[in-house]
């Protein structure tokens, strides 16, 4: 029990006042092999040393791999549960949300299994709020059907920022975040830059080209001709 000693109450209180209660969020990666959704979920977890319960079904593990401990920035213990069916994943998540000493519960479900319906997500959300443990459901190859998740994100990778020392190498990861449904805040779209050394996400409004005014096109035509 040495490392698993729970420091949830004390750790991290100064960094972020937990005005927002922890609840159930869903993340839909743009493609199954996109690891941005997992990284975003990890960056939103409270900064504690409490263990994470990480539940995967078989297809998620086969198609999208398993989390690699050396690649996770935070050194917190992870309890992995490898299961074969999605119904078992939901059962374990619900059981884990009874335990207040967990830091977070992360579940990965592949596709749209019949067990993952509105009732199941509602149970998860209510349990997560009752235990005040944040819970993330990462759904690959799934359609955003009816769900009781309080926040629902669509997440895709974007070409990364510039590397400070090597122009050829990929730099800080950038993600396209789309909060398309939220119970607590206004939905919106952002381009996020992940700063790995400090484990922070910087949000920015997406930059788009302005719509063309009719006069502009005419001017360019004139210049060409």
């Amino acid at each position, binding site marked *: 029990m040495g490392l698993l*000693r729970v420091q949830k109450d004390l750790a991290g209180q100064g960094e972020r006042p937990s005005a927002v209660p922890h609840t159930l969020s869903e993340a839909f990666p743009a493609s199954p092999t996109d690891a941005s959704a997992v990284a975003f979920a990890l960056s939103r977890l409270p900064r504690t040393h409490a263990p994470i319960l990480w539940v995967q079904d078989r297809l998620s593990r086969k198609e999208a791999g398993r989390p690699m401990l050396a690649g996770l920035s935070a050194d917190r213990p992870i309890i*992995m549960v490898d299961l074969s069916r999605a119904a078992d994943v939901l059962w374990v998540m619900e059981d884990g949300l009874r335990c207040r000493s967990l830091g977070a519960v992360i579940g990965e479900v592949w596709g749209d299994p019949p067990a993952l319906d509105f009732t199941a997500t509602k149970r998860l959300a209510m349990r997560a709020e009752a235990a005040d443990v944040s819970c993330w459901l990462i759904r690959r190859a799934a359609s955003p059907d009816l769900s009781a998740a309080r926040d629902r994100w669509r997440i895709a990778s974007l070409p990364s920022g510039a590397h400070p020392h090597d122009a050829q190498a990929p730099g800080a*990861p950038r993600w396209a975040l789309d909060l398309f449904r939220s119970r607590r805040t206004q939905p919106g779209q952002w381009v996020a830059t992940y700063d790995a050394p400090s484990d922070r996400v910087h949000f920015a409004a997406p930059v788009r080209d302005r719509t063309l005014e009719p006069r502009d096109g005419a001017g360019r035509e004139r210049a060409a001709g």
Partner: protein
Amino acid sequence: MEREGNAPPDDIPVVLAREGQHGPVIHAANRCARLEGIQAGSRVVDMRAICPELQVAYADEAGDRAALDRLVLWARRWCPWTVRDGDDGLILDTTGADHLWGGEAAMLIEMETQLSLLGLTARLAVAPTWGAAWALARFGPVRAICAADEAYFKLGPLPVTGLRLDGATVLLLRRLGLKTIGAVMDVPRLSLTRRFVKAGLAANPLMRLDQVMGLLAEPVSSVDTKPVIRAQVLLAEPIFDPTLYLADLCEDLCAQLKHAGQGCRRLHLTVFKTDGDVSHVDVATSASTRDAGHLHSLFRDKVERINPGFGFDLITLSAGGVEAMSVSQNTLEGGADDDLHLTQLIDRLSAKFGPRAVTRPVLRQSHVPERAEAQIAALADSPADMAVLTKERPLRLFDHPEEVRVLYAVPEGPPAQFVWRRQTHRVTRYAGPERIAPEWWKDRPGTRLRDYFKIEDQTGLRLWLYREGLHEDGRGGDPRWFVHGCFA
């Protein structure tokens, strides 16, 4: 010896073999085989030449030892101090216990009777010291009894192998012409001391002789038994479902554990069927506990797996892995114990999905990515030498690297384009290579090195790609490319 229902008849030579340095050697032989001239310790092929109809079975040495340990406790019926002696003996300290059985001779007859009812052949002897009893039981007359002052006369004619010496010393004594214990006793003490001054106990005839004569102490340190903590319910009629009685059994067991100040880590539920058969279900916990409600919940989905047969009329619940457990109050107001909840959660998950499904990854000292992580039990202590990795590693790792078809830009660099899972990825940026050489102390010869690249494709997907081997490295054909992980 292994006991089976189909014991071979006594007129067939049967030996038990164990693995020796040059093939199997004889571990033990039955009487018929010994009469044919077969000796323990010689090679099976040689003995087959002597006796072609020899039957050979492999010896179960660990099983024999465990059976002997059980027999040590079983022998407590005659005296309170018993201990195992080597791999083939029991020592009973019967001081003050023989008169309960009508004297020493009657006690030996009683012991031989009881042991033969178990199907065991025993050679017994009573002597004032451990060493004298050892020698008399193996080389002396049947049911030998040696009083305190008779050791010189009774042990004198026995061969020197009765002194518990190693083979080299016995050979040396034989070469010196000392063939019996009595001959060694007659040698002046000073010469023996001078000759074996540096020898250890197993090679020192003088010290062994002193042990036999009682000049050197050799106490019997008896092994302790733990009391079995068990709850049982005896039913008037056979039933098929133990669920109703399980809660009471758990309560009873936990009350016993609490009384003893102990907790258990395993539970064995056994039902005794009316047709004489036995069926059982085991559950385990990750930390010792005596919480009846929690232990009961572990059986929730497992009781159905019990095979009731024609019904059973006796249910026992016994605790395994019993260890001392002290209760500590960790909050002033007596609130919930968080650590306890976590262990109970892991118990529930392990009981439902098996202990292999619930693991905890820890870092290990290796550069090869698939070996850099070890899976340990969820609540085990992490190993002391946790590796610290400074290189950038992906967030996700595939269990099996997936091969891709590549289009080269330059042979040594990253590919310009590759096809993975039927999709074409164009490499826009890359970092690397990071070369990871095979671990020659583990890998097979001919394993190729890996050059890892972190690449980014046109959609922003960041992947961990590696090339296995080099061009013209003489270890197979062209190098192959694999995707091994995904970055954030």
